[in-house]
């Protein structure tokens, strides 16, 4: 069973700006995340893990009406959270996906205190394999 784990970071509060953490706290955070990734690779559960560029670079695209040119926009400033990164894991059970998400959620922040990052867990649906091209 495949699950997508989406790490949502609240926007703009100091605690979520790694650039304002102490170097030790930042290093500890990165080491924690790397260790988690290594664990998922070793267990054969990691399908993919990616971090996304900052929301400042994001664009929102909607095709124009009647096939007109697309309308693009920055991400809305009022949105309180943004997707910072995601994993797709292939696991035995939903419980295991939650367990991995909980681990990611508890990554240390300033002072080594767990950040309790909200992680959205969604099952990835199975589709028939695309015809070989």
């Amino acid at each position: 069973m495949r699950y997508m784990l989406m790490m949502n970071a609240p926007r703009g509060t100091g605690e979520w700006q790694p650039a304002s953490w102490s170097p030790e706290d930042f290093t500890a955070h990165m080491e924690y995340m790397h260790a988690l990734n290594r664990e998922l690779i070793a267990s054969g559960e990691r399908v993919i893990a990616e971090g996304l560029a900052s929301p400042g670079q994001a664009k929102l695209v909607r095709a124009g009406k009647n096939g007109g040119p697309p309308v693009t926009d920055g991400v809305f400033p009022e949105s309180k959270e943004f997707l910072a990164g995601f994993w797709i894991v292939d696991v035995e059970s939903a419980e295991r996906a939650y367990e991995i998400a909980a681990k990611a959620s508890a990554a240390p922040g300033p002072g080594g205190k767990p950040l309790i990052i909200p992680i959205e867990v969604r099952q990835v649906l199975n589709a028939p394999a695309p015809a070989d091209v």
Partner: protein
Amino acid sequence: MTLESPSDVTSGDATMDIGHLLRDLAPQVLGAVARRHGDFADAEDAVQEALMSAAQQWPADGIPGNPRGWLYHVAMRRLTDQLRSEMARRRREDAVAVERFAEQALSAPTDPSGGDIDVEQDDTLALLFMCCHPALTPPSAITLTLRAVGGLTTAEIANAFLVPEATMAQRISRAKQSIKVSKIPFSLPTDAERAERMSAVLHVLYLIFNEGYTSSIGAELHRTDLSNEAIRLTRLLHALLPNDGEVVGLLALMLLTDARRAARTGANGELIPLDEQDRALWDRQLIDEGIALVEAALSKGSVGAYQLQAAIAAVHDEAAHVEDTDWPQILALYGLLERMTDNPMVTLNRAIAAAMVYGPDAGLEMLKPLDDDARLRGHYRLDAVRAHLLERAGEHERAIARYRAAAERTTSIPERDYLIAKAARLVHREPR
């Protein structure tokens, strides 16, 4: 010309690394098949199938007495089978084509135990020029080169770029299609276009190397090693064209850069900049080879952009401690390079060298004109270099802002983490 191949002396040796042997033979066999058959896309498919058969059969049956001939004949037989069914289909459609196909098919020797084949040294060169043709997009050129000249399988290339195999197969077939559509010939370029075509080849090899170099981080260690593949292909090109100074320059640049690989990233894949690297981890053997190459090339009096970059890398690699770095020489070399290439990235590096020689203000002054350079607009490197020089000038608040701006813009995670850590270190420096 007949090329001496390692396979000539190692036939039957069970300990021989079959994968390496196949990759060495791939361009020679493909060259011979494509020359005979005329259609590159079909020839490439047939050779790829022959390579896969070999990879399955040889470990069990042993390497045949003449591995190159074996691959050639298996590939030709596939083409012949394909032509026969094509002939049947076309029989009523095109009498002339039937004649031509029949001639090719029936003249093709199909006995795998037969003698060795003619290997034209120029075949491999012609393949490289074709795969790196300027009409192809860089991603197409890179994948085609890795497959046709490098002899990598689709799965290996997909693994290198972290995409599914089906996606890579499609990318390769599109690249072959554009060779067909653009009518790119399987031949050496004319003298008139040679310089431009050569620089396209070198650029593709350089891109392959960089792709491997910048992605060589912790979690992705099991990726197909593109840096080593680029070095192998550049060595091959150097063996074919020993007197080309820029080929020597590119090979030296790769070796001198690759020599620092072990020191370049920490345990978690974090980036360790040149001035903080443990130089004991540098590969002395690669450095010695790179320096010998660059000295030989420069002593011949030809100077090109890759040779200059190699010379700069050599100056860094020669310094046992970061304080021993000969910055005035690096500054002078970047000056030459800047005049030769008109590349704002070179100016950025020259500004760093100038700051090391004359102090950070001189470097910051040199960055000012780059603010108006459209080629650097929004690029993180300008912010990163400015941050670094501001930090050295003691302007910590401004440096923090630039480090953060650079971290926002880079698309590399290790680079981003490095820049964030630099900002964090300044924010939390003691005393505040």
